[in-house]
């Protein structure tokens, strides 16, 4: 049985690494279709990453070691996060070490490193992007924690696999608290992954950038790592969402290879639906001014806390 657990862990990591750019490509493709544009190839993110790996890296003269290390730290944090989140099976050897709160901390660490590296060179745009990223981050993080707390209270544990198992094993019941937190989580996902109401991932206008502004100084393999990490982050958030709100199809029992195999196409279907939904939200909404971002994230926090309160009071 132990071997199967390790296999599950490896499968999840490989799947996350391989499927993250594909998921990003799918979202971009859906968005292009909805906006009546000709869609780029779904493989475009892979091609971009390969192209960047073949280029010669150029680094600013005054860059410190932090600037060089950051892409690897951010990428490593995202891979580790992908290992903790139960996207296919819940028997993961890694998850003994870290629960959902540690996961939020891991994501926060990646953010801090990215912001520090953006400020390291000392260009105006990098600093601007870093500051905005921190502003969005410090508002999104409590909302994300609240979302996780609601799920934790329902399952009486903060370990993500246990939460997923508990929610997946129950018969279908209406949870108003989970519905509220799902809305909150969607808002956090949009804000944290530089999606449209907060940031435009396809922008070329530096003044409105948040995430892209932090990457302006990176080139070649460093940029490739950062972009892959960004795709992984989106993939991870999608999988956190599945683990908390649509846990059906994840193989829960110990040593069940058939369930593990069955969970792969289910994950693909969930990701396809999620990507289309994400593209729809992005097409329907307009980018808000950066000063309105706190209001957007305050509503996410409000939804999450309402979910918590409703759970405390109604027990549902």
């Amino acid at each position, binding site marked *: 049985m132990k071997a199967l657990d390790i296999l599950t862990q490896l499968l999840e990591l490989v799947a996350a690494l391989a499927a993250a750019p594909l998921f990003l490509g799918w979202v971009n493709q859906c968005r292009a279709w909805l906006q009546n544009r000709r869609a780029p190839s779904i493989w475009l993110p892979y091609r971009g990453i390969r192209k960047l790996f073949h280029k010669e890296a150029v680094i600013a003269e005054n860059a410190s070691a932090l600037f060089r290390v950051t892409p690897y730290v951010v990428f490593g944090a995202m891979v580790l996060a992908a290992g903790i989140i139960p996207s296919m099976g819940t028997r993961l050897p890694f998850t003994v070490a870290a629960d959902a709160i540690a996961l939020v901390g891991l994501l926060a660490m990646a953010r801090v490193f990215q912001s520090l590296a953006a400020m390291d060179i000392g260009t105006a745009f990098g600093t601007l992007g870093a500051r905005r990223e921190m502003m969005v981050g410090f508002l999104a993080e409590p909302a994300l924690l609240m979302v996780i707390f609601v799920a934790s209270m*329902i399952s009486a544990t903060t370990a993500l696999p246990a939460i997923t198992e508990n929610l997946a094993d*129950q018969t279908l*019941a*209406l949870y*108003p*608290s989970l*519905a*509220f937190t799902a809305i909150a989580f969607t808002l956090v996902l949009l804000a944290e992954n530089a999606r449209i109401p907060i940031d435009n991932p396809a922008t070329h206008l530096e003044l409105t950038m948040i995430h892209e502004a932090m990457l302006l100084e990176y080139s070649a393999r460093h940029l490739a790592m950062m972009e892959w990490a960004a795709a992984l982050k989106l993939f991870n958030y999608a999988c956190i969402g599945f683990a908390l709100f649509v846990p059906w199809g994840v193989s829960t029992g110990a040593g069940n290879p058939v369930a593990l195999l069955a969970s792969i196409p289910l994950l693909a279907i969930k990701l396809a639906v999620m990507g289309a939904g994400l593209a729809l939200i992005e097409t329907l909404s307009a980018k808000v001014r950066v000063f309105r971002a*706190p*209001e957007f994230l*305050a*509503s996410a926090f*409000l939804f999450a*806390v*309402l979910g918590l*309160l*409703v759970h*405390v*009071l*109604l*027990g*549902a």
Partner: protein
Amino acid sequence: MTRIPFDMQLLNLCAALLLLLSFAMLAQRRVVTLVNLLAIQGGLLFAATLLLAWRTGESHLYLSAVLTLSLKVIFLPWILHRLIRRLQVYWDTEPLLNISGTMLVGLLVVVFAFGLAQPISALASTTTRNAIGIAVAVILLSFVTMITRRKAMSQVVGFLSMENGLFFGAMSATYGMPMVVEFGVALDVLVAVFVLGIFFFQIREQFDSLDLHHLESLSERQPLAADSPSDPVQSAPLIKEP
């Protein structure tokens, strides 16, 4: 975890959505949308009453459900929409607190309400006793809505939403008030909206605005100046009145 029957789950969902609607009202700036939200709140109340009537078999709840539907979903919003069109008030002015601040105050109010309702819920014997806290929260949130708004229109919507909260509280604590009381309250609300509608026109004639802020500076001398027939600004709106 104990299994909750499906109709109770639906009732809980209604209660949670009522709470959510109160927050939506707190955040809403457009008066038209505010009235629409009030109508949706009435609709939810109607659904909750029907569910409870079906579950408990209390026939008088069906009657109050019909009363809710006709009065709170159809009639009052219709009157308010008419008033908005007549008075040409579509937006409320900037409230005393910004939206995020109001929301945080609202959250604290909800926590307070839940604490307040805990002993009451412990005493109640109905199956819906958990929802009392939500009803108290809705009432207090409507208070906050009334306090943070300046325009008379939004305050009236807050007042009506408070009545909805009271109704929901009575329903979840004791399966509704006696029919006589319910009819009396419904009539009261109806009359209140009529009176307030007339009142709006009077306020606007007097101050050329529905901003209740002006009422604060009312003193002994001002009415004399306003009553003087030589003041063209004051008498102008009178002519426009339909």
